């Protein structure tokens, strides 16, 4: 399966920026990498653990992180000083956190996203094909099948949640050479079905609700990432299911299984397949393919 190691990246010095008087934004790198994301994850986890006075919101992002602070409680510089301390003590290549491996069933080339993507062909780079045909060709695959195979061959890590409630940005857990990459639509669509699986830049997303969007559309999952009424048992503690650091395993399903799962979701009885794991950056960097296999096995 190609390269069997992920080489950690040398990151620049973090840039600490004031977001007005009540936010601190920290850019760890301009480019996406696992090193940058794991660092964002590790620092925000440490921030949570230390229960730093004056921290109101604590948000890891793809290659940066952001805190909302209450400057009446702590001066932003006091908080930045503590962030520098955390950063200095961190060994991101040898770090662990408790997370989950999650089964995400996907009906690729489903009728709903297909209808949408055909409707907005005039906003796409390739008006004559589908988003999957375009993405397969751009990434050097012979067929849509082969592209989907690569998309589901390794799990995707949730590197950030946001834009709207419940939307996970996910980065596939493979070496850089095997990362898939596609541009967003030339002009964003005004419509996207809820639960659509999209891909843009180097990130896969799940659209929580129907709405505008600019990512290439590949399929649809029958499961929810947002349940405002908290009807499903897995939403008991939060209206949002995915969390930063979660590991999503996209699994190809057929229409029959899609309908079965959807029926259970609508009945409020569906229970998500997820298992807790300890994620080790060291083991992942050393042998990603082998490590991914072990991770995914826990939900087999």
């Amino acid at each position, binding site marked *: 399966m190609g390269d069997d190691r992920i080489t950690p990246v040398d990151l620049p010095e973090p840039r600490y920026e*004031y977001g*007005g*008087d009540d936010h601190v*934004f920290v850019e760890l790198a301009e480019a996406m990498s696992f090193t940058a994301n794991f660092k964002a994850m590790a620092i925000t986890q440490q921030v949570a653990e230390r229960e730093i006075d004056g921290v109101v919101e604590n948000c890891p992002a793809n290659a940066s992180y952001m805190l909302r602070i209450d400057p009446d409680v702590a*001066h932003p510089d006091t908080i930045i000083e503590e962030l520098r301390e955390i950063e200095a003590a961190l060994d991101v290549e040898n770090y662990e956190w408790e997370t989950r491996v999650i089964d995400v069933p996907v009906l690729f080339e489903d009728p709903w996203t297909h209808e949408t993507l055909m409707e907005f062909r005039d906003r796409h780079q390739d008006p004559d094909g589908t988003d999957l045909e375009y993405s397969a060709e751009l990434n050097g695959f012979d067929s849509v099948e082969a592209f989907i195979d690569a998309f589901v061959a390794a799990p995707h890590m949730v590197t950030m949640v946001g834009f709207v409630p419940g939307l996970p940005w996910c980065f596939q857990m493979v070496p850089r050479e095997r990362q898939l990459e596609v541009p967003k639509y030339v002009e964003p669509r005004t419509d996207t079905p809820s639960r659509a699986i999209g891909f843009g830049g180097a990130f896969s997303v799940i659209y929580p609700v129907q709405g505008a969007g600019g990512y290439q559309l590949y399929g649809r999952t029958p499961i929810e990432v947002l349940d405002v009424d908290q009807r499903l048992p897995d939403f008991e503690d939060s209206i949002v299911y995915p969390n930063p650091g979660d590991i999503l395993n996209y699994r190809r399903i057929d229409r029959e299984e899609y309908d079965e799962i959807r029926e259970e979701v609508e009945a409020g009885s569906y229970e998500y397949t997820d298992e807790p794991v300890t994620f080790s950056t060291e083991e992942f960097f050393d042998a990603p393919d082998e490590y991914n296999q072990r991770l995914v096995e826990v939900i087999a």
Partner: protein
Amino acid sequence: MIRITDGGIASTVQDLGRFGNYHIGMPPSGAMDEYAHTVANYLVGNDEDAATIEMTYQGVTATFDEDAVVAITGADMSPTHNGDPIDTWTTVAVEAGDELELSFATEGARAYLAVAGGIDVPEVMGSRSTYTLVGIGGQDGRTLEDGDELAIGERTEDRRDLVGETVGDEYVPEYATEDTVRVILGLTDYRLTEESKADLCEAEWTVSPEADRVGYRLDGPDIEFEERDQPFGAGTDPSNVVDLGYPVGSIQVPQKPIVLMQDAVTGGGYATVGTVISVDRGRLAQRQTHKSVYFEPVEIDDALTARQERHDRLSEIRKEVELED
């Protein structure tokens, strides 16, 4: 109970916001103009976090089926009480059966109606604020409509003693002329050319019709970006960065600048170039469509001083209202 007979253009129940969920994509919501919201609450004897009705451009018409003590602050929407004009920024008594009617905003964009006891909708995730995108908080997670009935919270004491209280002119903002908002530049403003950075702070910007609780899109000179090879994962457009968190109040530049407000999208892939300081976000929220806006760059200590002055001002108002009991 307050019975809404006309919901106005975009009226919602708001308090000071919902915190602790930005990392799962949930913005704070809450009053767009915290100052006006807070003063309205003080005038009726509430704490600042009681829920009020925020009205945009056109206010509500409402009848009360119980006696209540109310105050209206913020944009001037020419309110009447049983048909007679009443003062804004002033505590007013209404009786069961009375009607309050607000019209179109003449100055400012958002008015706040506070009632002693607060608007008593259920708390969702620790706040009564309405967030319409996913439909939570406030009245069924949406803007107010004809026929809505809003309960008034329990009053710990009779606040009729406050009727007639008003705040001094020095505490009432002049929305028509307050066109400057202070910003701390930074975030990823390295994406802008020097010329565009200068434009940001010197040009006249105008509020576009796309200005709501999510964000204020501003019209003005074209933004130019520094040329670069786009970093891995950032996307192909020069305005794109690797997706990052957006501070509330931050200015993002997909092309025309958008200032993110209380119902902000929490993150995304557009370069951000600075953040409106907390006390000036309400000032922007009061700028009407097509009105001008100027950004004035300030340092962190100026922003903190402005914040302290705001606190002091509000304490003075509260003291003034309570002392004259």
